[in-house]
């Protein structure tokens, strides 16, 4: 079954209450965080607690991702070694460069062999949160076969650029565009930066629609209350589903009459429209909307 990654929910890695409930909050993926959500003096504590949580808690159908510390910190190697051995679905790598991802790929291969895991089973999700990352996103994705998607980190990116981060998000327009296109070209997911005002649901919906309209395939959440809104934006609505069904029906009719090209409501229907219709129907069925 194709796995959805519409939402990725951040959970602090040193908080047992949140770790054990993370799986039932409705997100497609959970990111157990050893980085920004954990203070420097508790890095060891979070690592061990997250390890035990993954070992003992059944997260059912939710993708389990762990955000380790940046590779150039004293914590990273231990994070990767300890966490990889309990087989999360993926590791999320902050401020990742091509060189770091290649090195981490090799470390994971060694661990997979030692632990008899299927080779390549532990995936990677680099975070694009620096100017360098945005400009090099295509090469960063190419650096490892384990990469299944990329997260755009708007807060760190604007900090790197020395500019203000706003709700409207004009300042990250290029970054969103570039990440969405590079990810599509490399056939991986592109996850938008979280919307940080957890009380503003109207703003969250607007921000999510903006991301979706640029081709980003999902969005990070920092509070469980954001999940429903993000899923609502990423689901096809009744009209879109109806139109998609009509396109496919018209296509079948045209094929049976031996026609290659056809029109619907006066509009010519060609391959891209048909593909979009197929994707809509597939997603609608997956979501139980039809």
């Amino acid at each position, binding site marked *: 079954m194709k796995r959805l990654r519409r939402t990725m929910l951040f959970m602090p890695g040193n908080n047992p209450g949140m770790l054990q409930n993370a799986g039932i909050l409705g997100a497609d993926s959970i990111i157990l965080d050893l980085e920004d959500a954990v203070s420097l003096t508790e890095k060891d504590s979070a690592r061990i*607690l997250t390890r035990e949580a993954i070992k003992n808690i059944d997260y059912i159908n939710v993708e389990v991702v762990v955000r380790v510390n940046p590779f150039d910190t004293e914590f990273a190697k231990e994070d990767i070694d300890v966490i990889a051995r309990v087989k999360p679905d993926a590791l999320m790598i902050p401020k990742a460069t091509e060189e770091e991802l290649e090195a981490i790929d090799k470390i994971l291969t060694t661990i997979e062999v030692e632990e008899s895991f299927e080779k390549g089973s532990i995936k990677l999700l680099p975070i694009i949160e620096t100017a360098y990352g945005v400009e090099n996103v295509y090469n960063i994705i190419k650096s490892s076969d384990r990469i299944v998607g990329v997260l755009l980190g708007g807060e760190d990116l604007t900090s790197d650029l020395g500019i203000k981060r706003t709700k409207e998000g004009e300042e990250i327009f290029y970054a969103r565009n570039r990440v969405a296109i590079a990810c599509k070209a490399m056939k991986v997911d592109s996850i938008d930066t979280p919307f940080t005002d957890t009380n503003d649901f109207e703003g969250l919906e607007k921000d999510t629609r903006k991301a979706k309209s640029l081709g980003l395939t999902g969005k990070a959440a920092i509070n469980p209350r954001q999940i429903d809104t993000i899923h609502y934006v990423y689901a096809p609505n009744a009209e879109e589903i109806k139109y998609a069904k009509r396109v496919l029906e018209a296509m079948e009719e045209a094929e049976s009459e031996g026609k290659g090209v056809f029109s619907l409501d006066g509009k010519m229907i060609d391959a891209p429209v048909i593909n979009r219709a197929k994707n809509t129907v597939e997603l609608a069925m997956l979501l139980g909307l039809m």
Partner: protein
Amino acid sequence: MEVKKPSKAGTMESNDIYVMLMPNPKGGIEINLQSIVMKQFGEEIERVILETLKELKVENVIVNAQDKGALNYTVKARIETATKRAMGQESK
């Protein structure tokens, strides 16, 4: 493994357990547990503490613990963290 110095791990938040370890001059393992679910789970929590200490080969220690409803995996994790901190394997 010897517990060389006092150490602590965990928090007093819901679902967590706050553990403090210190060397035991009398030898052996002494556990002083307070728990919001003492009647129902006190024995089980002590069992997990003992099991974890055994795995880490700790034979002499005083454990003071304040439990706020931690599940087994949390008890194990916090005891392991405190033990490693007591070994001089500092927060890394």
